[in-house]
Structure formats: C-alpha cells, structure tokens
C-alpha cells in the first residue's frame, strides 16, 4: 500500500505541482490552510507525512506545527516545512519546534522526493 502524504498550501499552483511530483509514488491529499488540515485529521485521516507551507491565511504552518507537536494523537506525524521564507532564523525555529525538515521554495523536486523517501523509510 502506498504511504499517504498531506500537502497544506494556500497557493493553488504549489498544491498542484507538489501533488504532480509525488503522485506516482504516494497517495496524496491536499488542503489550503492549517485549520482545514486539522479538521481532516480530526475526521480520521491519518497521513504518514505532512508537507506544509508557512504563510497561510487562518492557521499558518507554524501554528499547525505547534498544534500537532503538542497534541498526543498527532505528534508522531513528520512535518516538512516548504516556504519561500529563506531566513535562517525562521528555518532553525521551525526545526527546533519539531519540523522534520525545511525546504525553501522554489524547491528541487528530486531533493524533496529523496527527503520524503528517507523519512518514510525510517518510520
């Protein structure tokens, strides 16, 4: 069975692109902000990995990361941050908060695939 990946991004093109890149190897869902992602999880959807943007209306990626890492039920789901913010302080803060990795947009699709493969293989 294919592993499940949830993409959280408010930009249509990024949701579509990332999905296109992952679709041949993974079972991909996508949604456009943190609140929608949380409600998917609360309704029983269990992804093996989440890829999240940071700047989104409503609940952004930092908030989503914080919520998931502090929850008992979802803190084991690895989260990769995918953002156009290239500030090292921001990157380090998210890694310290428990993000599995941080990739800058535009990202290298092969690198994203390799990172995902590593994370999922370890699980």
């Amino acid at each position, binding site marked *: 069975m294919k592993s499940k990946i949830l993409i959280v991004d408010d*930009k*249509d*093109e*990024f949701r*579509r*692109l990332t999905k*296109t*890149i992952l679709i041949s190897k993974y079972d991909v869902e996508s949604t456009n902000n943190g609140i929608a992602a949380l409600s998917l999880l609360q309704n029983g959807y269990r992804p093996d990995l989440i890829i999240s943007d940071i*700047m989104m209306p409503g609940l952004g990626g930092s908030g989503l990361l914080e919520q998931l890492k502090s929850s008992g039920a979802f803190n084991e789901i690895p989260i990769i941050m995918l953002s*156009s*913010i290239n500030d090292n302080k921001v990157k380090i803060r998210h890694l310290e908060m428990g993000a599995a990795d941080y990739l800058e*947009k*535009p*990202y*290298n*699709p*092969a690198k994203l695939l390799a990172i995902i493969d590593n994370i999922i293989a370890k699980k």
Partner: protein
Amino acid sequence: MNFQPADKILVVDDNNINVLLTVSILEKAGFKAISANSGVEALEALQTHEPSLILLDVKMPHMSGLELCRLLKKDIQWKDIPIIFLTGNTLAEDTVEGLEAGGVDYITKPFNKNVLIARVKNHLELSRSRKMILDMAKTRDQLYSIIAHDIRSPLSGIQQIIDVLNLGFITPDSNDFKELMMQLGERTRATTDLLNSMLEWTRLKNESILVRFRSIEVAPMLSSCIQILEGNAQEKNISVKLDIAPETYGWFDEDTMLAVFRNLLSNAIKFTPAGGSVLVACTHTGQSVNVSFADTGVGIDAKTLNQLLNTELLISSKGTNGELGTGFGLLLVKDFIQKNNGSLHAESTPGKGSTFIVNLPIAKSTKK
C-alpha cells in the same frame, strides 16, 4: 522660509503678563498661539489642540515645567512635540536638567523677541524634517516587507512551475500542463499588478506631500470613477447606482481623493458576487461631505474590519471572482483620507455586504 503660518504654539507660564507678551510676539510673527497658566491647564489644552511646539516656563507652582515635560515625553501622542523652556534661571546645571528632561532648547528671560521667533522657526523646521524622515523609514520598511513576502512568494511559484516542467515531471500534452500554464499566467499578472500598485503607492506617497486643497464638486468625480470601473462591474453583472445631493462641494485635493474613491469603488465591485449591486451616495451635513460605497457583497467580520481600518500593514484578500488583492488599495485610501483631513468609517455584515463611508471637510460653495 518654509515655516507654515498656521503653526500653533502653546505657551505655558504661570505669570499672566509673560503669557500675554509671548502670545503677542508669536501672533505678530504669524503664528497661532494658545496659552495655559499651569501644567494642568496645559494638559487640558492638549486634549483639544495639537500644537506644533510648546514654550514652557520652568518654574510653576504644583507641576513644574520639568515635570510636565517629562510627562509629555512619555506619551506616544505628545512625545514628538518640541518643547522650548523659558526661564529666568541662567545656571548651567538647570539648563542641562531641562534639556535632559526632553526639551529641545532653553531660552532665558528676558528674551529678545527676534531670537525667540528664530529659535521657534528652527525647531519647527527640525521637527518637521524629523517627522518626514520617520515617515520615510516607515514606508521603506513596508516596501521591504512587501518585497520579502508578497513578491518573492509569487516569483518562487513561477520558478517552481518552470523547474517542474524542465525536469519533465509534466509533459506539454497533459491536462496538468494546461492548468499550470493558466496558473503561471495568473501569477505573473498578479505579480505585475502588485509591482504596479507598489510603484503607484510610492509615487503618490511622495507627490502627495503637495496636496492642493480646493473647493471640488463631488458628483463629477464619482461619475468618472464609475466610468473607469464600468468594465469591471459589467463583467460580473453588477449594477452601480449613484445617489448624490446636487451641488455638493468638498474642501480637498482632487488627485488623491480620486484615487480614494476609485479604490473604494473597485473594492466594492471586487467583493460583490455576480448579479449584486453597489450604491455610491453622497450627502452633506453642515460640516462635512459624506461619500459612501455600499455593496451587497461578501461582507467582513468585525475583527477583520477593525484590523483593516486600524492597521498600517498590508492585508490582502481574494475577490469573489478570484481577483487577487494586494492590500495596497486600503493602505493608500487611509493615507490619503488622512492627508485630506477626512475620516474613514465602515459597517459590514458577513454575507450581506459592506458600506465604507468617507467624511471630508465641506466647502462653502455647497448648496444648502
């Protein structure tokens, strides 16, 4: 020199003769002067007046000039008003104490009236330059944050699409390719729009220092706004109605207010679903002209509305047709209304629509 005759100076001194003398010197030099006989009276005067400068006696009973000065320098609303101390004391340590309390200058009594006026003018000029520099720094910070987020983000989207295409994840004959091309086009257009409005904003922000107040009839301005945006309204089948009290004249700068009206109308159309309507109305009271833009659009919840009206940051939202907002429009609107001595109010019910109301000073030519 470019001191403005309308500058208002507050004179604070417990000695009435000194007050009368100083006020008359200031008025002869073309300033407006208001006076207070104690620290408490000065604080009361500051509730209703916004002086450009304060001349402050050091020795007063109850609250001394130094105490009042320290108090004002702690308050965000008053801390930028330059304070010049007036005193009979010539001791160096007293001068130092006054300057350390936040005074910009120290004049000893009895003073020469020409010296007083020259110093007042210098400090007004300095304080104006200081304010201008702070404003410029704020504009610059806003531009940086826009470049950092709002332009980098769409550009990285564009770059990502190109990369994915180049790496062969998608083939040109697929449906995904077509969709992506459309999104690429939309992103590029939105980024260009953002750049254009950013440039317009900086241009108008710099030029708008030269606002020219005149008596302007409101009706032709609103009609021309409607004409400019007719296409946008027709595209969504939105009817725009005009209801204007005849011969209403406002006292404002035409160019900046035209930009305000155009932006508010454009927003009303943007946030109204197809088939809705927008009512542009203009009424007047004895003191002000009220121009309102009422739409039957998506509405705004109270928290967001409060944010929109009170922040100086960019807040962008998508229109009902997916029109991309840049957040610049409302920033510009608020800036310009303020420069025209007006105010902006809004009411909104989510799902029902919003009304934005601009109050502007009325001009005498208005028909009663």
